[in-house]
């Protein structure tokens, strides 16, 4: 096969034929047809449900006046601040907690394994039931949390979700960490387990234990995984709709929306799809670099997850 292409390389061919060959590669006749046919369903799905919506969305949100309108809206300004806090605090606290806990779960013993099984429960349960449960738990009058506070300290707990923006946003972030930390702990735990035990043994001979072992062995080897996980988690969190919707509902008085929920609210509650798309599009300056870095990292399989 290779010799044929070498011979043909010197021959002038028409543009169309060389283009066809470039696509065919080493495949012949019917094989090439099969290979193309196998791709058609995916290409169809991608074009109909990803490419077309992206183009359509860009078209819906192309009017600059929309962004001016958004910018003058105090709710949108708060939403931007909330989104940034949610991403920076939520993602980083969660990832750092997951990193520490993954170290804890490396300990031997049956009860640590049992604990891990319980600990991953928030991840196994669907988002909706747990967030609705947390929403009720935080009810100022009848919720479990304030009942416990009353029983223990004999004081009235605050109205977690209906009095202050910061309490409500804090509740959302804590719920988010509660739900998502187990998953990343398991990922980082898998990362830690893939570190060869000999490295630790060698370090022990050299006298490195505890903190120094972590700083000099675990962390350098986990750093890349940790970075990719943080970036991936940032982008998924940017699109997180359920946590805010069901824990705080964007309240009190629309002060705890994030971009993903505000976009849906604008589009479907006040029937302004163009405004909703524009709200979501304001995340693009953050999203595009993240997407590019992640695609590079994931494609080259620097991370074996």
């Amino acid at each position, binding site marked *: 096969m290779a010799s044929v292409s070498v011979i043909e390389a010197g021959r002038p061919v028409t543009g169309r034929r060389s283009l066809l060959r470039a696509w*065919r*590669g080493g*495949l012949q006749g019917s*094989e090439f047809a*099969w*290979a*193309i046919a*196998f*791709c058609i*369903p*995916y*290409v169809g*799905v*991608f074009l109909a*449900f*990803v490419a077309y*919506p*992206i183009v359509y*969305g860009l078209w*819906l949100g192309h009017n600059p006046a929309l962004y001016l309108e958004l910018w003058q809206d105090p709710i949108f300004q708060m939403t931007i601040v909330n989104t940034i806090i949610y991403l920076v605090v939520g993602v980083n606290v969660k990832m750092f907690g997951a990193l520490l*806990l993954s170290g804890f779960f490396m*300990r031997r013993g049956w*009860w640590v394994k049992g*604990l891990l099984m*319980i*600990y991953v*429960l*928030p*991840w*196994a349960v*669907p988002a*909706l*039931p*747990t967030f*609705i*449960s*947390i929403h*009720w*738990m935080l009810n100022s009058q*009848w919720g*479990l949390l304030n*009942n416990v506070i009353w*029983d223990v300290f004999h004081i009235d707990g605050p109205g977690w979700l209906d009095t202050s923006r910061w309490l409500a946003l804090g509740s959302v972030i804590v719920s988010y960490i*509660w739900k*998502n930390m187990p998953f990343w702990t398991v990922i980082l735990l*898998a990362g830690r*387990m893939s570190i060869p035990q000999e490295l630790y043994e060698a370090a022990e001979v050299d006298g490195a234990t505890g903190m120094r072992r972590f700083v000099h062995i675990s962390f350098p080897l986990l750093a890349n995984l940790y970075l990719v996980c943080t970036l*991936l988690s940032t982008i*998924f969190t*940017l*699109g*997180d*709709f359920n946590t805010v919707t069901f824990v705080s509902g964007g309240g009190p008085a629309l002060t705890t929306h994030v971009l993903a929920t505000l976009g*849906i609210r604008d589009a479907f509650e006040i029937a302004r799809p163009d405004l909703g*798309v524009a709200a979501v599009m304001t995340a693009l300056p953050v999203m595009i670099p993240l997407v590019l870095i992640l*695609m590079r990292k*994931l*494609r080259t*399989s620097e991370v074996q*997850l």
Partner: protein
Amino acid sequence: MSVLLLDKSSSRQAPATAVRKKNYRLQRILTETGCLALAVVLIIWTLAPIYNMVMVALQAHNDVFTNDIWPAHPSLYSFWIVLTEGYWYLEYFWHQFGNSLYIGVMTVFFTLLIASLVSFSVSRMRLRNGWLLTNAALLTYVIPASFLAIPLYRIMQGYGLGNNVWSIIAVEVTFATPYAIFIFQQYGRSIPIELDEAARVDGASPLQVYFKIYLPMMAPALVAVGTYALLLAWNEYLYQFLLLSDKRSMTVPVALAQFLNSDESPWNYMMATAIIYAIPPVVIYYLFRGRMTSGLTMGGVKG
């Protein structure tokens, strides 16, 4: 031990060793205590919302609005109401449960079919420029699904799929295939390409290689991805909420969220519904956990 240490040469070091031993033991006790304390905190932290869910489900309607921290008169009545569709919000519960299941099964089938075909073509038949498709998949994987909701909603209406479970199946397949392709390509590298080549030499067509060699060899990845797709479709809310508004085409999560619109707030029925809805994915998660960890868990994040 002390007898051994009476040896003259080591007698000078004896006290130091003893102190170190003592320190070591103290440190170990402290570490163990710390771990135990952490374990207790973790258990309370993890189980509090789940306990709350169970507690409310076991209470009678009037008991929900009290300051009890455990159910005064626990009963399974709420579960009975849900199972017998005995409340007007739950009128079509089993129908909706069936819808969720149908969407889940169809999503699994089409995700596995579409993703395995394209992975076979790109990484086994080595279709030239196949990386374009891999990149398209990666791009889809890193775009948050909720960001496409508004245009996709209008497009679905345009396709005439409003209020149709097939619109949901299409959406779930769209967002499950990228991860599936990602995993299939990674897993496929562990299967020697010589197997395919040998079959081709024996005269097998690409379709035969796909069915007789590729799919059987990929079985573990198929199971992992299938589980992922099933859980994704079962747990997803946003698209199901936007695209399904009719009570008969709704799925369980949408019906569950409907309770929040009610003035009566039947929290006990709602939590019982929530628990019944959560049981299948939890069972599946724990059953297939071993097959999904260390490599195959990665995609579960997409909400």
